[in-house]
């Protein structure tokens, strides 16, 4: 199949990735900020526009492909990873993005999501997490907080929520990250890292739904307090946060937990603070960090949890195909192929 993969990509700008169709999200929806960052990120990769495919399922987030000037499929609720996997395995030269939401990816699509993570097929999975069902107008989602009152849980949600990065790590994802819709530059950086990663890249984006779940991430976005509530993880740097950057995360080997400490208090020095390492192959520490935000008194980590290079599902598939081709002495004719095994001739 003809592609332009070998030709240098034109020098794109953000505009080259706008389909010209005006997005129809609600005013103030976090999705606007996310698509803006995606369109800013794509030019840098140098991938021809026609070699990029956006695949989505169903939900507010899933309208995304219509607004991108690339190839795209708007598919079935929860199933986007399956289409994306077929595209990528069939045509590994394409760059394939999945755009999904918390309901799409983690409820109806939970099975496809975890299997995408474990296969490590080179897909970029962006999950917009607004902790609510928006398109159906406000029902509880798999990431809604326990006890949350929604239209289907008027007395409060009886379900415990998923922690998406922890789920992705548990399923073996080689790249796991989190950002926030309103933190444009941070989100852009995370998207770039996801784009550069080879293998399944999962990005959770905290996204505000101004209509059905407004203010869900106020605690992280509020300018006055965010230095204390956000932990910005950066590879190779100590996990420090707080207004003066003195608070940090320490691993306590006795309790096998992470704890918040303050540099300069009780003999704590910067040497006690964990240095973030996204390339650590063992995902245990990343998993501990992913779970940290749920604990009172701990900041919510944003940034890249894990970025490990392992052979991708599409590489493995095509290596096997190439090996089979190399092992076949010469291409068999149709008749030779069909005549494998025992035959007899009738004259």
């Amino acid at each position, binding site marked *: 199949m003809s592609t332009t993969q070998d030709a240098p990509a034109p020098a794109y700008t953000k505009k080259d990735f706008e389909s010209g169709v005006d997005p129809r999200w609600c005013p103030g929806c976090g999705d606007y900020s996310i698509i803006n960052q995606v369109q800013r990120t794509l030019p840098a990769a140098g991938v021809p526009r026609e070699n990029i495919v956006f695949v989505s399922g169903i939900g507010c987030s899933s309208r995304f492909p219509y607004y991108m000037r690339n190839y795209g499929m708007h598919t079935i609720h929860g199933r986007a990873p399956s289409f994306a996997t077929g595209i990528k395995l069939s045509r590994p030269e394409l760059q394939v993005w999945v755009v999904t939401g918390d309901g799409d990816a983690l409820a109806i699509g939970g099975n496809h999501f975890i299997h995408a993570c474990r296969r490590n097929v080179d897909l970029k999975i962006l999950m917009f997490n607004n902790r609510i069902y928006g398109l159906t107008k406000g029902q509880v989602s798999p990431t809604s907080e326990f006890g949350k009152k929604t239209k289907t849980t008027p007395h409060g949600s009886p379900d415990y929520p998923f922690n998406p990065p922890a789920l992705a790590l548990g399923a073996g994802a080689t790249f796991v990250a989190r950002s926030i819709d309103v933190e444009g530059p941070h989100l852009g950086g995370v998207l770039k890292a996801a784009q550069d990663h080879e293998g399944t890249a999962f990005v959770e984006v905290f996204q505000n739904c101004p209509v059905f779940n407004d203010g869900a991430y106020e605690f992280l976005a509020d300018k006055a307090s965010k230095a204390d509530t956000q932990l910005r993880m950066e590879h190779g740097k100590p996990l420090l946060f707080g207004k003066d950057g003195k608070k940090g995360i320490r691993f306590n080997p006795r309790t096998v937990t992470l704890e918040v400490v303050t540099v300069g208090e009780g003999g704590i020095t910067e040497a006690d603070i964990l240095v973030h390492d996204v390339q650590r192959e063992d995902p245990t520490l990343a998993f501990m960090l992913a779970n940290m935000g749920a604990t009172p008194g701990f900041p919510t980590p944003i940034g890249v949890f894990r970025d490990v290079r392992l052979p991708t599902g599409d590489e493995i598939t095509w290596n096997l195909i190439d090996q089979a081709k190399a092992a076949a002495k010469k291409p068999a004719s*149709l008749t030779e192929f069909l005549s494998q095994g025992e035959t007899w001739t009738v004259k």
Partner: protein
Amino acid sequence: MATQTTPSRLKVAEVEAVTIRFVGDSGDGMQLTGAEFTRASALAGNDVATFPDFPAEIRAPAGSLAGVSGFQVNVGAKDVHTPGDTPDVLVAMNPAALKTNLADLKPGGLLLVNTGAFTPGNLEKAGYAANPLEDPSLRSKYRLIGVDMNGLTDAALAGSGLSAKEVARCKNYFALGLLQWLYSRPADQEAESIRRKFAKKPELAAANLKVFEAGYSYGETSEIFFERYAIPATKLAPGTYRTVTGNHAAALGFAAVAKTSGKQVFFGGYPITPSTEIVQELSKWKEHGVVTFQAEDEIAGIGSAIGAAYAGALAVTATSGPGLALKVEMMGLAVIAELPIVIVDVQRGGPSTGMPTKTEQADLLMALFGRHGEAPMPVLAAQSPADCFWGAIEAMRIAVKWMTPVLLLTDGYLANGSEPFRIPDASELPKIEPRYATAPNRDGKYMPYLRDEKLVRPWAIPGTPGLEHRVGGLEKDSLTGMVSYDGANHELMVRTRAQKIRNVIEDVPDVAIDGPEQGDVLLVSWGGTYGSVRTAAERLRAEGKAVSHVHLRWLNPLPKNLGAILRRFPKVLVPEVNDGQLAFYLRGMFPGVDPVSHTRINGKPLRVSELVEKVHQIL
């Protein structure tokens, strides 16, 4: 291939055909024995048709009635269309096998029994109060020959160093040796086959060969047989042949598509009985342009295929009833997006898990109508194991030509049954030439739903600059493909998609009538019942009855000339392995035509004798 036989003390009687059923415990190797006898018969130039019948449990308790596994083969000098109704020869390896199969044996038929397995324990497991072999009525009704295959196998392998369990597993080769001798098959070919099969375990190859030879010689020396048989070679069309099962043939068909088109064939699916062999075979053929993907479930299987189709591959999925139910929403997406994929439904007994290893034709109406919204698709059905090859290729040709999902129906009987397959030349295969769009089609823009005169939309694939576009499950504008909630546009799109599928009629050949153009009864069949119904019609005409037969390969669209043919016959009989689905469909499609429905839903193919009897009744 010439039939060489060893010199024998016995005269060799020529017979036109024989139906043999091998039955034993699931662990007794009856499938292998049957397959090997079939292979030897095919190599001897006979036409063959087989029917493996096994339980869904991999290993039901040994010796139990539930654990009986059988393999029936019909070997003939003339065209063989079916595995035969009732066996002429029953080879029963234990009491449970005898109990569950004896009623099917023809009166006077040869009953060959492994007496070594008729122990008190096994008799009890089979529910026999007394040893049935000692019942004089058995001997008066059948030609009973008891052979202690257990004991003779033990004796043949005395001192071999194999464990008792390994020795016991060789006894099917004793039965095979005996039958190969009885039907004058050369012993040396089997030796080659055994060496190949056990190439990695030479000690087992030697043991099985020894037991096979013991069985073969036993026939010659034991003086329990008074004659041997030979079946003359069939006059098949000239060519090179092999035997294939339906699933193997379907897989060969898809691989042949990859080879002849030069395009990637992408299979995405999930294992489900009785379709699994299709992907198992395809996954071996990576060097032939086939990419296979075993998904996490049935839905993801077809989803990956639709994704690959969007990316330009010739995409396939295969499943059986429960999986088809799971794929329904995906098929609707393929219909509305107008992407070419083939869905193979290897039908099995349903509903729900039903009878996974037994055959049925009860997915017809689901295949035709089982989607939400107006979602028509072409539907074809293969008619014999080898025809699954041609069905696979035709389904893909139609999918690509018309940019539509296509359903190919086969069934458990075709999937596991086998017959000779004439290996075609590449020139006999229809051409499949996807024409990917390369340039804008309207005022410098690409309109993904701008159709040609046949209403087919163009296929632009990722990687093509300038044709970037989006497809999806929302109703789309009739040109741009962008989301449209306009009622008039929706109606236009629904009607256009339906008309496109009606237009497929140009690829549907008129049905041929087997038998007189006009007569008293017309038999109408579809799918896997072809062989039984064709044989019944032939038999009835041989009796002088004015009976004709029409077999439907195409279920949607139906052939143009079908209505006129149905109306020409005073009586139309529709035999099916379901509760009358084709009869129902024909009544709706051809008002005034009211077929007699003959149905059987017992997990087995239709019997020729019951069809003949049914026609006698209605004549």
